[in-house]
């Protein structure tokens, strides 16, 4: 669990070293805490079989280098290293390159980070050095210089050159990102609702919500729309964001590089009202065969093995006003399509795990879980019309919709 107190006392420099060494030997509690946390993260990912996630050589400098820095007392550099270790491993880190778009982003990004780093170090050093060198001292007279044209020209040219160096890769990758997707790209419509994502596959006849499934390596051509306010579609590890603006048809195209069992995390990133923070989604990247199988299952009407009495109970409840279950007369469109809701891992746009207990919380009174939720409370105890028994039956029904 998250333990705030020990971190409070952390000094950035020692912290970094502790993390870099990965040993957390002695002294502060926080070192053990951080090391343990890094270990947990690493362990968790090893368990999932994800490739080379923690130990990517680019981000983990060798030990002798760290020691040199420790001796060299460059605290700023250590803070930057802390980012590399604490920031880059985050599940939503933008610096994890897992999609073709993000790969393109990092081409100019690296150039710019290097330039920014050089300018940063140069200006900080100049500020500190000049401040220390020219402190007032007995006998020192300030030199009355008004300016120097040669210098002005030089330091006009320096930023011009820096800007030019930034522009070239920027424009290159900007136009590459906007290239037309290939004709065989998988078409997906992403539709923003307050506060959930709807995903439609027009060619495959699939409608789902909050969990996007795509095949590895194939370009997906996204059409981004919104039915209410402006939202934004963002899966940091795969791609940058593009807004979903009502009245507009925004497009973006990219492929996911690697299939993996763990989902990539996405989130709405344009402020869209009360539950903006809770508008999350997941992206599952499958191998081509796995994706085919998933698509076949999803394209079918609701599974035939459901209990007919449970279905009747569901259809008698208010649910069908907003939700669709294909193959029944539930055809509402205000809420997520529930035809295969049992196959999803989460509910409430990624807020809750898809378990009977969480479904109960959600159905009983969704806005207690997710502020502003447009789904009215269903349980009688919360002002709705359904008894606990009725909700139980509906939960069973929904869980069976694989």
């Amino acid at each position: 669990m998250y333990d705030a107190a020990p971190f409070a006392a952390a000094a950035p420099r020692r912290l970094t070293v502790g993390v870099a060494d990965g040993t957390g030997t002695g002294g502060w509690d926080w070192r053990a805490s951080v090391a343990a946390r890094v270990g947990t993260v690493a362990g968790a990912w090893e368990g999932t079989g994800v490739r080379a996630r923690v130990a990517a050589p680019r981000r983990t400098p060798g030990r002798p280098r760290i020691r040199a820095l420790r001796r060299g007392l460059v605290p700023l550099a250590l803070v930057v290293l802390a980012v590399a270790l604490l920031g880059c491993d985050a599940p939503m880190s933008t610096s994890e390159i897992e999609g073709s778009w993000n790969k393109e982003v990092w081409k100019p990004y690296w150039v710019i980070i290097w330039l920014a780093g050089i300018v940063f170090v140069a200006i900080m050093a100049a500020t500190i050095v000049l401040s220390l060198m020219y402190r007032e001292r007995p006998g020192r007279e300030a030199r009355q210089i008004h300016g120097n044209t040669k210098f002005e020209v030089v330091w006009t040219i320096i930023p011009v050159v820096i800007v030019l160096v930034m522009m070239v890769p920027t424009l290159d990758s900007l136009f590459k990102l906007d290239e037309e997707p290939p004709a065989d790209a998988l078409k997906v419509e992403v539709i923003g609702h307050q506060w959930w994502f709807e995903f439609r596959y027009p060619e495959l006849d699939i409608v789902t919500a909050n969990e996007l499934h795509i095949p590895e390596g194939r370009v997906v051509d996204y059409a981004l729309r919104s039915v209410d306010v402006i939202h934004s579609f963002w899966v940091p590890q795969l791609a940058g964001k593009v807004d979903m603006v009502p009245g507009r048809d925004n497009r973006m195209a990219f492929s996911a590089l690697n299939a993996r069992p763990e989902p990539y995390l996405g989130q709405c990133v344009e402020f869209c009202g009360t539950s903006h923070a809770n508008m999350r989604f997941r992206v599952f990247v499958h191998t081509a065969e796995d994706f085919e199988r998933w698509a076949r299952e999803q394209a079918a009407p609701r599974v035939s093995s459901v209990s007919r009495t449970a279905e009747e109970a569901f259809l008698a409840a208010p649910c069908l006003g907003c939700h669709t279950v294909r193959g029944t007369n539930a055809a509402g469109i205000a809420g997520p399509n529930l035809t295969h809701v049992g196959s999803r891992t989460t509910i409430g746009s990624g807020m809750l795990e898809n378990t009977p207990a969480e479904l109960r919380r959600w159905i009983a009174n969704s806005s207690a879980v997710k502020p502003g939720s447009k789904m009215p409370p269903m349980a009688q105890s919360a002002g709705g019309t359904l008894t606990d028994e009725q909700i139980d039956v509906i939960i069973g029904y929904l869980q069976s919709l694989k």
Partner: protein
Amino acid sequence: MATVAGTLAQPTHTGVWSWITTVDHKRIGVLYGVSGFSFFLWGGLLALLMRTQLAVPNGTVIESDRFSQLFTMHALTMIFLAIMPMGAGFFNYMIPLMIGARDVAFPRLNALSYWTFLGGASILSLSFFFEAPGGGWFNYAPLSERPYSDGSGIDFYVVGLLTLGLSSLMAALNFAVTIINLRAPGMTMMRMPVFVWMTFVISVLLILALPPLTVGLIQLLFDRQFGTHFFIATEGGDPLLWQHIFWVFGHPEVYILILPAMGIVSEVLPTFSRKPLFGYPAVVFSGIAIAVLSWVVWSHHMFTTGMGSVPRAVFAVNTMIIGVPTGIKVFNWLATLYGGSIRFTTAMYFAVAFIATFTIGGISGVMHASPPVDSQHQDTYFVVAHLHYVLFGGAIMGIFAGIYYWFPKMTGRFLSEALGRWHFWLLFIGMNMTFFPMHFLGIAGMPRRIYTYDDGLDWGFWNMFATIGSYVIAVSLLIFLVNFFRSVRQEPTAEANPWNAPTLEWGTSSPPPEHDFDAIYTVRARDPLWYDRDHGIAPPEVTGEHIHMPPPSYYPILIAIGITLLGVGALSHLAVSALGGVIAYYGVWGWALEPTD
């Protein structure tokens, strides 16, 4: 407040009524400064609440809608009610003194600007008692439209900003005319102090940037109150039109916030380095270049809205080019230190820290000028870090440099240097603790404007770190308040020019008399007091002639009450607006006929 303010300006008149009716630019400057600083503390309190909520994952201190109101009001308060008026406080107090004048061009208009500001600020702030706006300071449509924001919050936003815009417009017109027309003999444009130049530049920016905002606000008002559909896509409107209008205003506004601080720093650095500003023309012209370029970069706030490749490329290039004049400024400030004999007063600490922290904000700004990079930065904490390095590391650092620098001029007293050091170092450490980790959070994928985040995203550590930093800032501000209140109670000891500074405001007593200068200076060089000192030129002789000063007037506050009621009427009942209109018209009538001789 009255007693503090009273000490500040050494008035010949005293009492509340004398403050209400004052048209003295120094007193109006004090009113702006004290109000602005109070709102700064208030806005900071809102930020502390947000940081407290975000300290740990799944925080439960503040619920969602209240959090939206907090970040909206924090931004509006800091931008319109704190930084702008604190800047205005310095313009009001210092510009006439720095150009060797006895007042601004329109003293009563000056008072009207202040009271209208107070009216607009009250409308905006008192919204907390009804429903505070919660759509962000950028207030994107269609979230701001009736179907999605039915309460009165957005109306408070519209009316508050319209009122504040009117106030800023009047102040900007006044200062543009003052700087063009009231300079002392010999003070050519290229002899004006950089702070005066920057004030002139932002006056022009305000004059040109406020009308688009006004139009956008009026269109939003019509959408909400009269059923038009300017920004509603389902009825044919265009939500992106609002974004274009808002950022056409919004980007110049960013420079409106930062340029005064750049001006202040350009005064403080030479004074304490004991040498002239390096490359004065370059600093002035790069300031102008920044202002001009600010008109052709607004769409970089909209890189992710689905604009075509070519517009994004053009706006990216324009935005990067702004890095050039900004870089020139930074280099010239550094060169001002070179070869100096630097006296490290607290003001100088803030000025030098400004160079460092502002540069960080500048660098990150150029980073997301690249649209591909911006597609990962936009609406994440990286942008929060960037804008706070510009506005806190830039504007606020500059303003504190100004406070420590000009405090003796304004009050005749010194702020304690010892407490000043504590204030500086805690603020500097606190702000870097708060805002630097936000870069990491942004790269780690934390979106802006979220009231909660899940455990397991690895955002907890740096959020806690940033929250601790924000409390360090709060402690540093408490130290400043102690310093301030201790100092205003001391006996005045400051002579006319305690820092041995070069500009004209130091050529009169501290604090200055009501008429500013006993005799008007003739300016012979860019740093007039140093030139006169080095060439053995005595201060101008006092001729003992009658100096006419404009009499106090209560019409400005009367008109401001009328304008405020006009706005309040739009929020409540049209009869209130009608009453406001009548009061304002009566005030203008009385104003026009009031003798000023």
